[in-house]
């Protein structure tokens, strides 16, 4: 032990140290149990590991809409916590046992850099497709057809989550009441639906002539539209947005328009007219729904999903289309 202390003092005097670089991608942050270190999305943080007293537990905290997947493997085995046995977060890193391993102990005296890099994944929905096709002719009732192992129906959540009680095939939905309370799938009336795969909460349209009525249409570009400073905006949907926020609709007061990819998550391509799960989203017109995404095609167009077919397309911002509000986060 005395010998180790001498070595340690020598190391400190040389100011050499092994470095731990924490690289945090978009989608979350890293915090430590001690509170000493916090590394936010998009940041790279460096920690000196100089002695046998280092002991920290790192937790990967995903942002809204993301989940922690794994610690990234880096070249030459330099990704900490990336081994199969320790891929989970939180991950504890301590050096007290390095004394018994000359190779590890030697690292403390070098300028070697190791990495701690979380991988955050944003879950997205499957297509809903559970049927196969023959080549050129024939839609089959089940997952059979030409080179079937390569067709959509053979892969993804739709192939592994066949229970329809929470939504068609791989979709998983929960009905919510007007104050946000979760309701059973058998509930006869509900105001919103939570997508359990993506975590997003969606407005359910009504047929009562009110603010949420299925027949209300809007030109593009009210509040929460994306594309800062990009040309034409019409504030038509602000009444729906402001009204929903003021009413704390389904318990939330920060509703917004979905991005084009978020909106496409609702498309159920196993059906058409409309291409959506009607058991959870009744009163859905077979028509276009605006997203918040502007189109780079030209400054007067924006993206929408046509729920007649389930396709994404762009159109002039002056067109009157439907909208479905989304909420994410707490």
């Amino acid at each position, binding site marked *: 032990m005395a010998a180790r202390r001498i070595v340690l003092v020598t190391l400190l005097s040389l100011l050499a140290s092994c470095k731990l670089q924490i690289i945090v*991608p*978009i*989608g979350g942050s890293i915090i430590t149990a001690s509170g000493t270190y916090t590394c936010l999305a998009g940041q790279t943080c460096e920690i000196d590991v100089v002695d046998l007293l280092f002991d920290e537990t790192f937790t990967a905290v995903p942002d809204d809409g*993301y989940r922690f*997947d794994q610690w*990234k493997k880096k070249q030459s085995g330099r990704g900490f916590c990336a081994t199969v046995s320790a891929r989970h977060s939180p991950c504890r890193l301590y050096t007290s046992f390095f004394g018994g391993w000359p190779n590890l102990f030697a690292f403390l005296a070098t300028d070697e850099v190791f990495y701690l890099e979380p*991988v*955050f*994944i*944003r879950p*997205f*929905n*499957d*297509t809903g*497709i559970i*049927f*196969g*096709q*023959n*080549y*050129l*002719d*024939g*839609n089959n009732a089940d997952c059979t057809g*030409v*080179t079937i*192992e*390569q*067709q*959509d129906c053979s*892969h*993804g959540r739709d192939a592994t989550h066949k229970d329809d009680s929470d939504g068609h095939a791989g979709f998983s939905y929960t009905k919510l009441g007007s104050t946000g309370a979760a309701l059973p799938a058998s509930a006869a009336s509900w105001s919103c639906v939570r997508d359990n795969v993506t975590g997003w909460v969606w407005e359910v349209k009504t047929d009562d002539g009110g603010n949420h009525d299925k027949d209300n249409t809007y030109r593009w570009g009210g509040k929460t539209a*994306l*594309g*800062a*400073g*990009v040309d034409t905006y019409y504030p038509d949907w602000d009444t729906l947005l402001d009204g929903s926020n003021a009413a704390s609709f389904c318990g939330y007061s920060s509703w917004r328009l979905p*991005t084009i*990819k978020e909106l*496409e998550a609702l*498309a159920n*391509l196993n*059906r*058409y007219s409309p*291409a959506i799960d009607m058991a959870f989203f009744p009163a859905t017109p077979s028509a276009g729904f605006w997203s918040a*995404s*502007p*189109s*780079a*095609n*030209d400054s*007067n167009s924006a*993206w929408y999903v046509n729920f007649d*077919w389930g*396709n*994404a*397309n*762009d*159109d*002039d911002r002056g067109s009157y289309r439907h909208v479905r509000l989304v909420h994410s986060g707490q």
Partner: protein
Amino acid sequence: MKNHLQKLILACLLGAVPVHGVAQTCFTESEMPSSTPTAHFTDHGNGTVTHDTTGLMWAKCVQGASGSDCTTGSVSKHTWQQALDTAAASTLAAYADWRLPNMKELRSIVEEQCDATTINLAIFPNARSSHYWSASPYARFTGVAWFVDFYSGISFFTDHGSSKYIRLVRSQP
């Protein structure tokens, strides 16, 4: 101003095959942030890239091309049947579980910030600014499957016999 779908249908009716040069136009980051930023990808240096936010591994090059800038080899278009069979036969980077992507997977690499090649060209160099088959059949009609037009970024569907490019995907373990 015609939208992309109208232009596409018009081109099909006229029997025209649109040929697009790489003249990508994009919003600036402050106007509209990238939906598939380079930082979200890991290039494995063996013809494959992983999209960290979806966990999907993609072929870096359109099927038929290879090399670090995807300029080697000969790229050809495929019918839907040929696309399915080509995916099944691929052993790119020694993986045997390549697939033709489904419609939502294929759309996950559409770059919303751009037009006239709606894909991140730093990650997918020399990408064809055209139609790519998905593995998703179309429910309404028989003999029709979905594709993504990476020129405009729209999704649409067409006859199985139509010839289109393919980009393979695999689910990582």
